């Protein structure tokens, strides 16, 4: 529809790949922690996905090691467990814990707002200084609660992981 009618200008001078990909970082908006949450939600989502893939490889290692390296699977498992008790892996674990602990509570907030439309306020009659109703509605408090819960749980997770 729009694409054809946009014509030459449309194709020739669309913002480039980098501008588009970096938009969440390059646009500056005031009073907008939702955007911080959006970026964090994406980044933590990628971390969790990467962890899941690595986790599948790890738990499956007694099987694939026999096929790939022709070694005893359980010996290989113990070998991997040995590597993973190192400090680098603990830091990795700590990062994954942080990712999950943000992604889950924020996901609940997003479910409430996006599917059930609650916490975003009701339309009304905006008055100066024109603060959007969504920014004074409950979801903003939930968002701050998410940040607090996240940091507290992450500290607890850190204590458990490193001691």
């Amino acid at each position, binding site marked *: 529809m729009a694409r054809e009618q946009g014509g030459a200008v449309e194709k020739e001078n669309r913002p480039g790949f980098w501008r588009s990909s970096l938009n969440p970082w390059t646009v500056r908006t005031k009073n907008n922690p939702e955007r911080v949450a959006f970026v964090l939600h994406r980044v933590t989502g990628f971390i969790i996905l990467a962890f899941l893939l690595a986790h599948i490889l790890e738990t499956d290692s007694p099987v694939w090691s026999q096929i790939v390296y022709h070694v005893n699977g359980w010996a290989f498992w113990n070998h991997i467990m040995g590597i993973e008790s190192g400090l680098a892996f603990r830091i990795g674990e700590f990062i994954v814990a942080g990712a999950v602990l943000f992604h889950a509570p924020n996901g609940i907030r997003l479910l409430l707002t996006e599917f059930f439309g609650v916490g975003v306020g009701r*339309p009304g009659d905006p008055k100066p200084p024109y603060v959007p109703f969504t920014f004074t509605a409950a979801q903003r408090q939930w968002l701050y609660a998410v940040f607090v819960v996240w940091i507290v749980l992450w500290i607890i997770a850190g204590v458990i992981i490193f001691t």
Partner: protein
Amino acid sequence: MAMDMEAARRSPPKQVTVRIRRYDPETKKTWWQEYKIEAHRGMTVLDALLKIKEDVDHTIVMRYSCRQGICGSCGVVVNGTPRLACQTQLTEVVSDANPVMTIEPLYNFPVIRDLMTDFTDFFNKHRSVKPYLIRNDKEEQENPKGQYDMYPDEYLQIYQYTNCVYCGLCYAACPVVAADPEFLGPQALMYALRFVNDVRDEGWKERFLIVDTEHGCHRCHFAASCSAVCPKAVDPAGAIQSLRSKLFRFRLGLYKRRVSKIIGPPPEKGEKVPLPPEATLLPGVDLKKLEEEPVVIKLPEDY
């Protein structure tokens, strides 16, 4: 964007450096150009741009019209934030410590020249959500015999959205528009809700089907940057979430709302119109008192 009500009372630095990102379609070159201007109290970003255009460099291209935040044509990115140039005081974006401001064309729009961007796509998306009243009785709609009724609380369901000035700032701020150029965008989705909420409209089914796509309302991730930059507090972010929850209910077969009835032609002069029993009143309105001392609105003789 919440307005800084004090900004116009402060004084900007005497001399302001304006860095403008320019684009020349003939040579296809983009470059930054710097201008120095004398600033005065009450000067807006648009005033600064016009001063440059008048006194320093006539070749700068920009778009503007009303100079008072009504036409929505002067949107630019000032110091990384999409803003209406005419509604932004210099004091909001520069200070004595940092008297430099950068001005770029709106993000996520193809640039035509300098600060002027192409809105074709934006308006096509707006049109694609059918931004007009749809009634089942087309015959009545073409040759109306009366008016559609609507109560104050129902009007509040759409009023905020009708404030949109089509400036495209929301579109420029949205991270999803940036990544997916087919995404309908905050403005169009907000406008779909404006008509879904309108009791005079019966076309919600059509609109739900239009926005219920991969590039429709499901694409939005509630970064709410659209609401953060909107100069009219239209709040597209909240609108999209409520559109999505209504769509959700519609798909489950649970979406219902009142459709306004046709009431008779407007009253004759002096005719008394009784309020229907289901009418809601604005706070502070006392019907009994009105009955005793009716408000008489005098029209001029030649009206």
